[in-house]
C-alpha cells in the first residue's frame, strides 16, 4: 500500500512470433499468468500479458492490426488462459490459433458481436443475428467443447 513498488512495470513489445518463446521461458521458471489485457489503440489491437512471481511482474505487449487480429494461443502452456482468450475473442475479435476449450463466441454474451472493436473486417449482419439461435448453438457447441475438453484437458 505504501508508494506502490510493484517491481518491473516495464512492458516489452514483441511480435507475435517472439511471444511463444517469452511465454515458454516464464513457464519453465514457474511464473503465473496474472491477466491478459486487450486495448484498441490507433487502429491496432494490443494484447498485454502480465506474469507474476513473488512480488515481480513480467509483462509483454503484442500489437496486432485491428481489422484482422490473429495470435497464437498459450493455452497449451497455461491451460487457464482460456478464460481471458475467450473473452478477448468475444469482445475484440482476436483469433487465437490453437485455442483449447474454444467456446466459439458464446462465452461472453453481448447483444452485438465484438462491441469493443468496430474496425473488425469480419463482422457481418449474419453474425449480429446469432443471439436468436442461442439455444441451438449451445447444444451444438456442447459437442464441440466436450470433444476439445477430452483431447486437450486443462493444460
Amino acid at each position, binding site marked *: *500500500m*505504501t*508508494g*506502490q*513498488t*510493484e517491481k518491473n*512495470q516495464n*512492458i516489452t513489445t514483441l511480435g507475435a512470433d517472439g511471444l511463444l518463446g517469452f511465454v515458454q521461458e516464464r513457464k519453465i521458471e514457474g511464473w*503465473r*499468468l*496474472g*491477466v491478459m*489485457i486487450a*486495448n484498441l*489503440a490507433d487502429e491496432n489491437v494490443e494484447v*498485454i500479458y*502480465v506474469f*507474476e512471481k*513473488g*512480488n515481480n*511482474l513480467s*509483462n509483454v505487449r503484442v500489437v496486432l492490426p485491428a481489422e484482422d487480429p490473429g495470435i497464437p494461443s498459450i493455452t497449451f502452456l*497455461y*491451460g*487457464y488462459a*482460456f*478464460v*481471458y482468450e475467450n473473452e478477448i475473442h*468475444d469482445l475484440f475479435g482476436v483469433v487465437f490459433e490453437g485455442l483449447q476449450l474454444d*467456446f466459439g463466441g*458464446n*462465452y*461472453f*454474451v*453481448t447483444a452485438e458481436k465484438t*462491441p*469493443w472493436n468496430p474496425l473488425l473486417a469480419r463482422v457481418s449482419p449474419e453474425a449480429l443475428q446469432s443471439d436468436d439461435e442461442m439455444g441451438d448453438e*449451445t*447444444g451444438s*457447441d*456442447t459437442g464441440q*467443447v*466436450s470433444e476439445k*475438453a477430452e483431447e486437450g484437458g*486443462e*493444460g
Partner: protein
Amino acid sequence: MAKRTVIPFGPQHPVLPEPVHLDLVLEDETVVEAIPSIGYIHRGLEKLVEKREWPEMVSVIERICGICSFGHGMGYCLSIEGNMGIQIPERAEYLRLIWHELGRVHSHLLWLGLLADSFGFESLYMHTWKLRETVLDLFERTTGGRVIFSVCKVGGLRRDVDADTLALMERKLTELVPEIEELAKVFIEDSSVGSRLKGVGVLTAEEAAALGAVGPVARGSGLRMDVRLEEKDRLYVDLGFEPCVETAGDSHARCVVRIRELFQSIELIKAAIQRIPDGEVSVPVKGNPEREYIARVEQPRGEAYYYSKGAGEKFLKRIRVRTPTNANIPAMVKTLAGAQLADVPILILTIDPCISCTER
C-alpha cells in the same frame, strides 16, 4: 454409455447471488461437464473512461460490485497514485487498511450466510446476516454509506475518522467476536453441515496451481498465496500478518479458511486502531497520469489487478480490472465435473462468485 441431458442452470436461480449461466451435461444425477457463459451483467464500465475524468472515475469503479466496493476504489486509487508517483500520508494508509479489513469481515459474513442458504439452512443464514448489520452500521457511521463508501480518492481519503469513533469501532468489534464464534462452531463442527461440505469439490494443491486459482480457493488447497505478504504492504507485515492455509482442499477447508480470516481481520483492525498515527489524510494532486501502471490488491475473494493507462490528459486511455472470480472460473468448472446435481449450488458458491466484478 448412459443417455446425456443438458440442463441450463441460471442466469435466474434462487441460490445465485448474481446471474451466471451454466450448461450442465448430466448422466442421471452426475454432472459430466459444465460449460459457463457470462455477459448478463456487462455494463461496459471500463468504456466510461472516455466520458468521465479520472478523479470522478473512482465513483464508477467503486460501483462495479457492492461487496468488494472498497477494494475496487482503493485499487483504482493505488493504480493512479503509482502512475503519477504520489505518496499518501501514513494515517491514510492505516485508515485504508482498517476499512479494507472491515470490508473483508463484511464479505465473509455475507458469504457464510449464502453458503448456509445454498444447502437449505435458512436460520443459520439469517443469524449470520444479523451480525453483518453491525458491520454495516459501523460503515455508515464512519464513511457515510452502508454499501458504497465513496471515501477513497486519488491522493488519500475524503474524510477522517476521529478517535471517539475509532474507540467505538473497537468496542463493537470486540462485542461481535463471541457472537461470530457461536455461529462459526456450527459451520465447523455440526454434523449435518459437515456431511454437505466435507469431501465435496476437492482440489489438490497441484490442480489448484495448474488451474490458476487465487484467494481462499488456493489457500484452502495448501498454497500459501496472498498479496498482503509482499514487502510493499509493510503495514500488514508489521502487524504480524500470516495467511491462513488449510490443506484438505474440499469445501469445508475453504469455509474454515474464510472463518479464520474473519477473526484475523478483526485482530488486524484492532491492532491498527492502537497504532494509528495522527496527521493529514490526503495530499494535493497536480497534473495528469501519463504512463501505464499495474497495481494489485488482495480482495476478500483473492488477488485483483488494476491496470491504468494515461496519456497526459484529463481522460484516461484504458483501465482494466481483473477480479479474482475471473481467475477462479477454471477451478469451478473443474470441481463441477463429476459432482452430484444437488452439490452444484455449493460448488458454485465455494469460489465466492462475484460475477458483476468479472464482467464489469
